[in-house]
């Protein structure tokens, strides 16, 4: 979680991180910032950037973040991006990890509100249902890509 994205005061229902967001430049931090502005629940996502890192460093950073927060869901930007490649390799030793590429704000929101909730706050995304949750979120998020005019 990037400093400054989450207000220091009481922001209502706080939850442990549910998923990792990783990508180029400030992509992940930007998405998480947007989710926080919209829902106040940016803390549901851990952001990782690949900027200035080797493939090995990216893999280490992602693996450490997944382990530190006991996460099993990762969202990345490009299908061929280095974060995607790192997670695909990591899946060899962490087969329970679910990866979705092409992430956008809508997808993160759909995911956030698909995770089983207790009293309105997301409480977890277990490996047993992570795949189904992510697939459902992806299907709903597809519909948010629209074109107007032209």
């Amino acid at each position, binding site marked *: 979680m990037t400093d400054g994205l989450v207000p220091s005061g009481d922001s209502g229902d706080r939850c442990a991180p549910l998923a990792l967001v990783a990508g*180029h430049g400030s992509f992940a931090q930007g998405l998480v910032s947007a989710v926080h502005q919209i829902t106040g629940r940016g803390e549901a996502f851990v952001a990782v950037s690949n900027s*200035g*890192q*080797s*493939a090995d*460093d*990216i893999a280490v950073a992602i693996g450490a973040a997944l382990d530190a927060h006991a996460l099993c869901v990762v969202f990345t*930007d*490009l*299908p*061929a*991006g*280095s974060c*995607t*490649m790192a997670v*695909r*390799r990591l899946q*060899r030793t962490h087969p329970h990890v679910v990866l979705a590429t092409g992430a956008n704000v809508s997808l993160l929101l759909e995911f956030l509100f698909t995770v089983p909730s207790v009293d309105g706050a997301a409480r977890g995304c277990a490996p047993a249902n992570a795949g189904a949750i992510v697939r459902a979120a992806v299907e709903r998020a597809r519909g948010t890509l629209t074109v107007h005019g032209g």
Partner: protein
Amino acid sequence: MSVLLYRIDDRLIHGQVVVGWGQSLNAQFIVLVDDDVAESDWEQELYRMGVPPDMHVYFHTVDEMTEQLARYQADARRGLLLVGTIDTMSRLVAVTDGVREINLGGVHHAVGRVQRRQYVFLTPDEAAALQALQQQGVRVSAQDVPTTRAVPLDELLTSRPTS
């Protein structure tokens, strides 16, 4: 010559290569030269999965390129060649005839390396290896994406490291 870029990039196939350079050069194929990847079906599947369906990826060991480089250079399609390390590129130049220009695209931080650009960190041995390539008549420059300036090796090694 239809191999338009000879790139050293420790991430091999990734966003900058597929989207940044691939779109800019209108590349239709990638030749990935890496002894380990060439021996691993799993790694090859991973890299193939990441590129658009109309972009072909070919995997070779360095030694195989002795026979193969001329064929790719004569290919009617537009392509780019990738290696992961300076050592691999040095070996490639040694066993082939036809690499005239090298793009240093991503050599990231590791113990013993000095930062030269945000995306280039070199050990003294790596810097010397690049200078040796240049002395063999191969132009070496650093450039991460097509829209930035190609920094000649001499400038890269003499200017103050930048962030």
